[in-house]
Every structure is written in structure tokens, then in C-alpha cells.
């Protein structure tokens, strides 16, 4: 029965971060991309909580996490609205097809 330590959390968060990036880069569906963003944010949250828990930094980490969660929600809302708007105009949510603006 091995006790769960800081390292495990960090590994998890790093994995989450990478998966998030992966999703952002590879997914064609805008919604999926946004989910990738959420993953990144949450990996950061895990970091905060883990650090404050194991580093005896008080509760600041947890507080920060709360802030971030709220923000993430707001961000998601706005992003989805924008994606919706895109769908209205282009009737697609494929980020690859949204490339009229370029050199």
C-alpha cells in the first residue's frame, strides 16, 4: 500500500496538460479544442492544490483553483457562444475551414 505523494499529482497534471495540448492541436472540431483548453486549466488546478497541500502553503492554492474554475466556466460559455456564431455563419465548426484571414 504505497502512499500517494506530490509526484503522482504532478504526473497526473502533466499528463492532463499534454492531453489538453494534444486535443487542441489535433482536434478539428472547435468544441473539442475548447475541451482541450479546459483540460489545461484543470491540470493547472491540480498543480495548485497539490502544491499547497504538500508544500504547506496554507489554503491559497485551493482558493486559486476556485477562481480558475469560475473563470473556466465563463470562458467556456463565451467560447461556445462564439463557436455557435461561427456555425451560424459558416455552418461548420471545423477549425481548419476557418482560415479566410491569412497572408
Amino acid at each position: 500500500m504505497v502512499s500517494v505523494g506530490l509526484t503522482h499529482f504532478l504526473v497526473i497534471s502533466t499528463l492532463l496538460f499534454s492531453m489538453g495540448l494534444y486535443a487542441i492541436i489535433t482536434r478539428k472540431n472547435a468544441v473539442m479544442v475548447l475541451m482541450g483548453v479546459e483540460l489545461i486549466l484543470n491540470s493547472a488546478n491540480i498543480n495548485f492544490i497539490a502544491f499547497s497541500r504538500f508544500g504547506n502553503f496554507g489554503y491559497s492554492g485551493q482558493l486559486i483553483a476556485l477562481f480558475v474554475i469560475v473563470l473556466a466556466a465563463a470562458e467556456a460559455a463565451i467560447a461556445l457562444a462564439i463557436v455557435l456564431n461561427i456555425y451560424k455563419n459558416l455552418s461548420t465548426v471545423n477549425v481548419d475551414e476557418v482560415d479566410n484571414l491569412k497572408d
Partner: protein
Amino acid sequence: MNFTSDLFLIYPEIVLTATLIVVVLFDLIFKRSQAWLPVLSLAGILAAFFLVVLQFGTNLPAFEYSTKNNLLSIDNLSTYFKGIILISSFFVVLFSIFSSEVKSCKDRHGEYYSLLIGMMIGMFFLVSSNDLILIYLSMELLSLSSYVLAGFVKNSIRNSEASLKYVIYGSVSSGIMLFGISLLYGLTGTTNLNEINTILRGASTIDITFILSIFMILAGFGFKISVVPFHFWTPDVYEGAPITITAYLSVASKAAGFAVLIRFIKAVFFSGISQGGYWNLLTYFDWQSVLVLISIVTMTLGNFSALWQDNLKRMLAYSSIAHAGYILLGVAVLSDQGITAVLIYFAIYMFMNLGAFLIVMLIANKIGSENIDDYKGLGYSIPFLGSVLAIFLVSLTGLPPTAGFIAKLYLFIALVDAKMIVVAIIALLNTVVSLYYYIRVLKNMYLVRDFSKPVHIELKPLSFITILLLVIPVLLFGVYFTPIVDFAKLSIQILGL
């Protein structure tokens, strides 16, 4: 620790918030009389400006939860940038009044102005916040409002695309930044810049995680000030977004970004100041080379890409990237002198860039195009606008006797004083390059005598006054720049350093 006692330090923010609420309510109640919204916001802005002016000179920590451990620091630097932000907001609101894009969506003006004010609030907190989390939060507030504004004209494809790119790109970079913050938090156990500084001073060894976290945070800032390699969103979004917003992004949010960058660097890494105003920074991170590298690449890329553009808006986007490069060079000097140069540059850049965008907008309102080829012969059909645009472009190039020259002059003075001759030469050659694309506009306007489709624009008094308000400083500061420099010199001090 009594928060209420510090509230007077954030009166400007409070006033803006109040204005926001008023605007929203007014919009809800008097749906019909949208024409009053800009007036309200202008009133709010002026009130805030008044308070900011009063605040200038006060250097106090706000909301300390222990000594030297404050969320906000109200100091001259932040106040200066608040001033910049307010002035540019003032102009942008004026622009919005005669922007056809904004007019096109009738019943959503309330939304527009409230979001604009939201951006202001975000920037206000950004420029004065002394805590990474507060930085993150205010930056998000700024970004979220601007995402929406970038896509304000819902049925315009350009707008929607711009906003989508902006939101994805922005949220990713802020996410990266947040992750960087978390790492830094893990390493130091705090998010307060001053505390991080004290801990770093005590630190014995620094491992790569630290460097990584700094770069990740830099990604966030770089996104705001749009320097290479975090600039990619800039041309697309600038081209796509409504011109008013483009102008606003290119000046105000850039200013905020620079303010926080300067504060971050100085507050976190400060270890002492030497004779001649040069900072001695902690050696864990080689800021100078990083910044110099980034800024040189930025200005070069900006200028050279601008050469290829046919869309004036996009060209100005690249030119603003190039200017960000110049400004960053001022930061890279890492001295009070450099910061002075940056502040001067911003004050002047604000006027000339806003001015250029305004003229482009007025012309676009009429001919419905921002393509340089459509500017042929405009100098003759609309002489006044033509000549004013010429002045702004010349100023952007940096030729005397316009203010743009003074901005560049101080930048180079700082560089030469820091013995960064080679960098200065590169920057100067960049200036020469930049001449091509600016002069190209003038060439189309004047040298090509094409009277096939004469354009006639009758200026409303308001827009005329706005133009004068922008062009007069550009010419005045060109020949008499003492006040602006004096002011900038006063504004470089950062709380507690």
C-alpha cells in the same frame, strides 16, 4: 488587515464599474435611445480620468495581507498606463460613434459599450496588480470582453472568424500562462511578486522548471503585447475585427500588457539599481538576451511582412507588431532610461496609431474597402483626410518634425547609452524598411493621379474635432516634447523598488 480602508485607492476602477452597471441598466430600460450610451461611457471615462489624475503621485500598496505583500500597487507606472488606457478608450468610444460597423448592429450598442468598459476594468487591474493570480484574473477579464468584441458584428464572417481564432488562441496561451504560474507557485509557494522576489534572492540553486515557468508566463504576456513568437493571432484578428476594436487592441491592451511585463520583470527579478539607472537583476534568467532576441525578430518580421500586405488594416497590424518590437527594445535595455523611452513611445504611438486607424475607418465607411489599391488618387478627392493620414504615416515611419521621430529618438538614445550599438543599427535599418510600406500608401494616394471614381466624404464636426485632437499632438510633440518627456520621467517609478 482592513480592506475597506484601501478602497479609495481603486476609486477609478469603482467608477468604471459603476459606469458599466449604469450602461447596462440604461440599455435595458431605454432600449430606444441608444445614442446616449456613448455619452454615458464618455462621462464615466472622464470621471475615471479625473480620479486617475488626482491619484498620480500616490505610491501606496493596496490590500496588503501582510507587509510588502499587496494585491495591487498604486504607483506612477500604473497610473501613467491607466492614463494611456483612458485616453485611448476615450478616442475609441468616439470612433465607435461614427463607425458604420458598430452602427450596423442596432440594438446591441449597450452590449458593445459595456464590454468596452469591461476591458478597461480588466486593464486597470492588470497594470496595477502585484499578484500573479490577480494578473491572470484581470487578463482573463480583459480577454473575455475582447473576444466578444472582436466578433461583435455577428453576421460578418470576418468578425466571427476573428473572434474564434482569438478565443482559441487566447485561452490556450492564458492556459499555458496559468500552468506556468502554478509551477512558479509550486517552486516558491506564493503568487505575490514581491514575495517571489524575496524567496528568489534567498534561493541557492535554480532548476529548469523555473525557467520553463517563466517562459510559460511570458507566453501569456507575449500574447497580449503580440510579439514573436506569440503574435500569430494579431494579423488575422486585427484584420477581422471591427476597426474600432482593432485600434483599441493595438493600443490599449498592448499598453496594459507592457505595463504588467515591466512590473513582472522588475518586481520579480530586481536586486538593485546601479548608477545611470541600470537595473541589476537576479541572474537566474537572462532577460536582456531573451528580450533583445525577441524584439529584433519581432520588428524584422513585422516590417518585412507588412511589405507584402495589400490590405491596409492588415498592414497596420504588422506595423503594430513592428512597433511592439521597438518598444520591447526599450524594455530590453533594462534601465529606467529604457522605461522612459517606452513610456514616451507609448504616449506618441497611441496618438499616431489611433489616428491612422481612424482615417482608415472613415475611408472604409465610404468606399467599403481597406485595400491599398482602392486608395488611388484619394489624396486629391479628399485632400484633408489624405494629408492627415500622410502625417500619421510619416509619424509612424519616424521622420521629423513629427512626434514619431521623438519616440524613436528616445529609444535610440537609450540604446546608444547602453552601448547596444549593433541593436540600434538593426532597429534603424528596420525603420528604413518600414518606410517602403508606409510610403506605398502615400504613393497610391498622391502619385497615382487616378480620378476615375472620385470619393467625397463630408466630415461631421465631431469627427473633424476628433481628427484634430489626434493630429495636433502628433505635430506638437514633434517640435516641443518637453512635457511628455518630463511626465514620462516622473512615471517610471514602481512601488517598493
